[in-house]
């Protein structure tokens, strides 16, 4: 797998490059800002671009803007955004649209090489990845009463994994269930919450996240 990295902190670029190369991933370039990133993507056509959400000049959401540009200019490129923010609004912005192949991970994930690489592979395979901490926070939200109360413990587990972007097959593998069982859970959950069923993985993630946030 070939990736490019964009992060304005040199320490992080180096650390990340070394970490990925140790895991056998081909880092074909590293940039310090969004413009350099776009050049690298257009030149190397990587499978995935790993993008820091904060980059010059304003250090706020340049990474998300860059992600949109990459998708527009080189469709099919996966984008994994590393973020400092546990904010559903940002994740929704990334997942929105027709393309999958994207991920919104907290930057702390660079400390877990295996998780990071697993997420990278999922993005490269066309899936969607949403950081579990963000999903936890959304699910932990106190509601006086609501449709979530009607879910069984197992169904809540499945819902969390749906929000993290896992496919039915991924969920089945994670929970040691058969794919048929997972399908049934998913159908029940969507029914109970009134979310329209959609086969496109990114649209399903978007719908679930939006539902949890509302």
């Amino acid at each position, binding site marked *: 797998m070939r990736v490019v990295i964009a992060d304005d902190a040199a320490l*992080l670029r180096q650390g990340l490059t070394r970490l990925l190369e140790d895991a056998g991933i081909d880092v074909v370039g590293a940039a310090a800002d969004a413009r350099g990133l776009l050049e690298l993507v257009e030149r190397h056509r990587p499978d995935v671009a790993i993008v820091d959400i904060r980059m010059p000049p304003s250090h*706020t959401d340049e990474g998300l803007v860059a992600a949109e540009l990459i998708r527009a200019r080189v469709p099919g490129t996966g984008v994994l955004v590393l973020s*400092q923010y546990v904010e559903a*609004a940002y994740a929704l912005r990334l997942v929105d649209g027709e393309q999958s192949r994207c991920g919104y991970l907290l930057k*702390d994930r*660079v400390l877990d090489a295996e998780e990071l690489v697993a997420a990278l592979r999922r993005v490269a395979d066309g899936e969607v990845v949403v950081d579990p901490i963000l999903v936890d926070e959304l699910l932990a939200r106190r509601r006086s009463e609501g449709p979530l109360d009607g879910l069984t413990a197992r169904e809540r587990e499945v819902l969390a994994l749906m929000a993290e972007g896992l496919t039915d097959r991924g969920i089945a593998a994670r929970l040691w269930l058969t794919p048929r069982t997972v399908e049934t859970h998913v159908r029940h959950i969507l029914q109970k919450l009134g979310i329209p069923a959609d086969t496109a993985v990114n649209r399903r993630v978007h719908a679930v996240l939006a539902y949890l*946030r509302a």
Partner: protein
Amino acid sequence: MQIVRLFAGGTRTPGWWAAAVVGLALPVSYLAGSIHNGSLTGRSAYFLLTMTVGIGVGLWAWAWRPGTHMGPLMFWWPALWLAGDLPAAFPDSRTASTIGIALFVMGPIAFAQMALSYPTGSLMRSRLAWVYVFVLGYAAQVVQNGYNLLFLDLSACPLCPPPRAPSWLHVDATPPISLEDWNDGWLVFVIAILPIGLFLLYRAYVRANPAHRRSLGPVVATATFITCTSWITSYAVLTDRFSVLTPISWLQTTGALAAALTALIGIAVARRARGPVGALVSELNRVGPGHVRDALARALGDPTLELALRLPERGVWVDEAGRELTLPTGRERAVTIVGDDLAALVHDPVLLDQPALLDAAGSAARLALENERLQVELRAQLAELRRSRARLVRAGDEERRRLERDLHDGVQQRLLAIGMALPRLRRELADRAMASALVDDLEHDLRETLQELRELARGIHPAVLVNEGLDAAVRALAQRAPLPVGVQTPADRLPGDVETATYFVVAEALANVTKHAHATAATVTIERRDGHVRVEIADDGVGGAGANGSSGLAGLSDRVGALDGRLLVDSPRGRGTRLVAEIPCGS
């Protein structure tokens, strides 16, 4: 006694004294000559009286209106008119004839000049009026009178009206044009130009502003009357209808008397002017600050009046709203300073004719004006305080953003870099169990630190507020609260200052709900209406929260106040807390 008092005061120049001598000599000699020559009739006595009154009023006005040409003009028209009629008192005197012929009709022309230049005494504002008076009036009349000085001689006609004696300039020669033809031609010329005078008077009246019209009205009316009688006289002479001349002469003299008397009354009223000032004093007691200008405008009868107040500390003039202004210097506006550089009245120059009124009004309004100035100064200081508070809040927000950025881009990046080095350290220490356990602890602490850092940065300044707006930021706040929070926000973005203030109001309020309210649920409602953003955070907790007790609420009050908004806390014990902020927010 009254007359003496009226003449006391005022300003007298050598020119005035010379005029006074002429003004005394003319009526005396006219009267003496008429009696001596037995030519005093009821009509000429009436004429003499009228012109004498006119001369007196003119001299008085001259003394009271230094600085304008109005005083001299008011003196000269009756003086010239009377001098032009001297031959009637001395029908056979060549000296009287010389003076009379030379000044023939100069009086009415001077009257026209006075009327058309009222109240400034200057004709510079209208080119047509200038041409009418100086070219068609004085210059043409000099030519006409010069011809008669040279050729007129009625000494052989004892029944003709004066002047019967030839002038001292008379030449014994046949005129190139017969005197009859010449004078008929002149009459036709006069008949032709007098309507121009009527038009000019009408136009001057229409163009004047209301305050101006009040004093211009009598002048225009009498001038119109005299112009019309002059036209009828000229037409009657031209067409040999002599029978109408006597009644017309009575009428014309009456018009002149009316002109002199209205001028007299006008000046007397202006000098006294106790009425409007008395009303001003009582009105100033009633009206509040900000209305002194209106009261003064009414008292002075000048709706165009502007008020300027002096701010000595800043050395500038300002209007009642505190806006800086410069005093005008042109002819169109006049400036009267009140008090010792306390205030300035910028008014129509017509009011300069009433210095006593201006003076009295200024004195009467002095206290109110000082009040007004204090108010303006206070308002200016208040506005500056507001701006300074807004600047402080904005600087604080800027500082928060910078801190958040430093935490994320400095501290966090370094911690992450350290964390990424730990696995390699662990590999190096693989065979030493104690060291490896230590690395595990370090890594655990590091993750905790990173999480705390993330939350700290978010509390200092939420990046999502800037990028995604109030709705996203408030939903995130509600999401993290340990109790159910219903959220209702407008979808569209608000101005940055308003969003930031609103966000911190919600954040602080929800923090208070969490800490103190013992509530089971809360709601956040943000809505836009009538140019305001209204934020309400309500809970079902124990209540009893006070706006004064909490430093957090005081800070919020400052923040909202900096945007001219207000913060209300309604927290009856045992019945929940409702915190409402209203912030102005232009569409």
